[in-house]
């Protein structure tokens, strides 16, 4: 049914087409360049509306894509991230004299990659989506072409990304060898016939390793700080949320299909161990960071550890918790990066936390948004960060992993130390003698404000996002 198939991927089509038009318009109508950011944002909104308007047919494209409540939740989250990043990108690009259509084209295409990847339970489609996402990001990382650190970030992400893709693909090949199929749903049936096959174990391990690279989980995390620091800040914001959410969802799908509950004890322990390592290392090393973007990179490593707690717990509660976590993480991370992008004088400079001294009383709006993001990342109520952590830890306790929840809350305590340091610089340090000349572009204020409001609204009323997430989780856990 091709009409049905086409209707199901209308949002993706829209993004691909507008992306191409933006790339062309850059050459043919350069006068439109200041409008590109807005166009990208509007496209994201339109695609999101389309996703909520068109019916959800379920499996389309011969079963390659699953357009169900889960897809709707994930698309919404990716498109919100695209919207916020596109808005905050324009002032940044204007400042670095790189207001080019390609930027938004790559951004929209990267989003398509993530959306395809998250909608599929066919390993090859997942891989294609992942590559589309990654290739766009390689270029975006290095978009600030006059900056050595940006080029370095792009190069590093490329090398690590290619390596992890190869690992993942190798895992996929082994799984295919073991089960004779690339569809996760059918592989599950084939698996029951061969418990404990070494081929299968190696395949799963490599698949997990490939995803762990994308998630920057310990011990596959070393690339994150350099890439976060070097990439243009709006790209870092996008990079820190969208690929991570996508990889988490693929991980959840794999666990759901290939590791049915009775057989998962060992894998649960493995996931829990990686979660503990990521939380602990991420939080401890973040304490030592002086550069905000590096600090947020380590905090991101820790947060993927928290999210992995939800995957380790699994079940409908665990998956719903992970989905809420991803949504929460998007809001608070983008808020943080938006403010960081405004509170910096030169793009070549490190974004030192000391540069924030006293800004809380001079630039109250953006500072407050940054403080809210920090509280939310630290998981202090009534923010959405607390709601997400509560749900994840609740899932762990219900699954009998009380110790994992305890490790998680102890890590939260450690993390408070460096998140509050940002607040301390903002509000409790005097302004330096030479006052920094920060600009507060309207678009950045808008992004930070939207995120801060979202953090509070979803923190007080988490039911809004939780109900959709539960509906989505049900499709995965049956």
């Amino acid at each position, binding site marked *: 049914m091709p009409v049905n198939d086409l209707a199901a991927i209308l949002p993706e089509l829209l993004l691909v087409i507008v992306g191409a038009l933006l790339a062309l318009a850059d050459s043919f109508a350069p006068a439109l360049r200041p409008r590109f950011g807005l166009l990208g944002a509007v496209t994201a909104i339109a695609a999101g509306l389309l996703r909520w308007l068109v019916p959800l047919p379920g499996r389309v494209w011969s079963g390659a894509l699953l357009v169900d409540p889960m897809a709707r939740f994930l698309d919404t989250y990716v498109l919100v991230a695209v919207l916020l990043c596109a808005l905050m990108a324009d002032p940044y690009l204007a400042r670095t004299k790189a207001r080019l259509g390609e930027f938004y084209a790559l951004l929209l295409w990267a989003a398509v990659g993530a959306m395809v990847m998250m909608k599929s339970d066919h390993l090859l489609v997942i891989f294609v989506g992942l590559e589309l996402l990654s290739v766009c990001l390689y270029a975006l990382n290095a978009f600030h072409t006059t900056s050595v650190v940006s080029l370095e970030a792009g190069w590093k992400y490329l090398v690590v990304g290619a390596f992890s893709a190869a690992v993942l693909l190798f895992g996929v090949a082994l799984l295919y060898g073991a089960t004779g199929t690339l569809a996760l749903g059918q592989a599950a049936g084939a698996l029951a016939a061969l418990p404990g096959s070494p081929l299968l174990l190696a395949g799963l391990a490599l698949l997990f390793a490939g995803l762990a690279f994308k998630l920057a989980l310990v011990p596959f995390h070393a690339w994150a700080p350099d890439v976060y620091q070097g990439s243009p800040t709006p790209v870092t914001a996008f990079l820190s949320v969208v690929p991570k959410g996508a990889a988490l969802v693929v991980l959840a799908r794999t666990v759901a299909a290939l590791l049915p509950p009775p057989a998962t004890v060992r894998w649960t322990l493995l996931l829990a161990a990686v979660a503990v390592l990521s939380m602990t290392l991420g939080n401890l090393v973040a304490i030592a960071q002086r550069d905000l973007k590096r600090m947020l990179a380590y905090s991101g490593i820790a947060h993927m550890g928290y999210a992995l707690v939800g995957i380790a717990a699994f079940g409908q509660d665990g998956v719903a918790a992970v989905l809420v976590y991803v949504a929460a993480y998007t809001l608070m991370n983008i808020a943080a990066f938006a403010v960081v992008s405004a509170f910096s004088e030169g793009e070549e400079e490190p974004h030192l936390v000391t540069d924030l001294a006293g800004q809380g009383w001079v630039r109250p709006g953006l500072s407050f948004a940054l403080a809210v993001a920090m509280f939310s990342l630290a998981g202090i109520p009534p923010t959405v960060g*607390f709601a997400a952590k509560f749900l994840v830890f609740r899932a762990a*306790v*219900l699954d009998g992993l009380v110790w994992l*929840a305890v490790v998680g809350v102890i890590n939260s305590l450690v993390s408070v130390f460096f998140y509050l340091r940002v607040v301390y610089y903002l509000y409790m340090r005097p302004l330096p003698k030479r006052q920094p000349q920060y600009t507060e572009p309207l678009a950045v204020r808008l992004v930070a404000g939207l995120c801060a409001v979202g953090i509070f609204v979803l923190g007080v009323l988490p039911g809004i996002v939780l109900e959709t997430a*539960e509906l989505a989780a049900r499709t995965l856990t049956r």
Partner: protein
Amino acid sequence: MLLSILTLTPGVVGLLVLLLVPRDAVRLQRWAGLGASLAAFAVALLVWSRFDPANPGFQLVEVRPWLPQYGIFYRLGMDGISLVLVLLTTLLQPLVFISSWHAIKDKVKGYVVAMLLLETGMIGAFLATDLFLFYVFWELMLLPMYFIIGVWGGERRVYAAVKFVLFTLAGSLLMLVGIIYLSWLHHAQFGSWSFAYEDMTRLVIPMGQGFWHSPQLLLFAAFALAFAIKVPVWPLHTWLPDAHVEAPTGGSIILAGVLLKLGTFGLLRFNRTLFPEAWELATPLFVVLAVIAIIYGALVSWAQKDIKKLVAYSSVSHMGFIILGLFAGGVAATQGALLQMVNHGLSTGALFMLVGVIYERRHTRLIEDFGGLAAVMPYYAGAFILTTLASIGVPGLNGFVGEFLILAGAFRTQRLAVVLAATGIILGAVYMLSLVQRVFWNPLTNPANEKLPDLTWYEVLAFAPLAILMVWIGVHPSTFLSISEAAVTRLIGG
């Protein structure tokens, strides 16, 4: 609806001030803070008039779905225990605004907003009857206090603020795991999700074998740690002197007056009711810690050179009495502990207020810098001495009633502890009276003290309600004891 209005009025006004009032409109901000806190006090009095003291259960109950699929509801309810403490909270808050009217000159807006949000957190924590909601309000108090200490505090304010946050969170995060575990237990035993306090009281929590395999002991420990840090129970008290001394006067009043009470309130409300067997087992431990706190706090107070530090350490000693009363069991001791929570809030709040008064004038708090103030500032001296007498438990004032009830109630079960604690009363008299001696009676040697102005009218206004209550409770304690009697009797009996 009444309880929601009571809880949310300060916080909502605080948010409105944050969003709508311009930074320079300092007078409006101050009046908004005072107005909102007075409104909350008025509502609290209204709630008191609607309160039925014969009913031991929760009254004026409000239930609204929040995350109903997980058994999380917005549940507020009030019994005699929480009413007493809410009255204390709502009384102290306007006095804080009055006493810091001129003391806080910088960043007034932030101060007012933080104080109002803090008040909502405190009232909410007393009134929440859903454990999730309780936790949210409990944590809501954290950040405003962090800002109050860290922005408007003394020299070592940042150290004190971070220490306060880390200590408090260290306790409360484990409590969060405990709360989740309780809801899981409820699902296991009753087949439905719930976070409601009254549902939790029906749980049968297994004792198991040994500490690490005993759900009840572990849960008791998780909750008790959170509350013991807040109280603070010796040896978890080290955050308190830093926080109290560095906080601005208003912050110290609220910290000593209300925040510490949340610890003892939590022990009474949650640990005592939910984990009775573990409570029995832990009693000797807490009685010993309480006695250590009483004597240690008093001795350390005696050694202080700084008036504010002296008052801060005296809190450790006084809170030890309250812990002793709670764990001694019996209606009389528990009632005494509850009354002593109010008494300590009044007298220590007043002491911090008065220390703030003198600090505003002299910018020093060292005892040796003063002497002979009784002649220069007679009203101030009178206020200080009245509060001192209340604090050391002179009959006719409030402290005596509370301490007497605690010691008399505890005498049957904890004889040795009572004897040792009584020495703490003597030590309390020693350090407080020697403070009064050195500040007010010794010869006036320092010329800087000769021209100190006496209390202003608004300082009197801030102090007067506290003085009235000190005498009122001392003379006629049953006004307040009768509020909580039914609730405490049910709690002890069942």
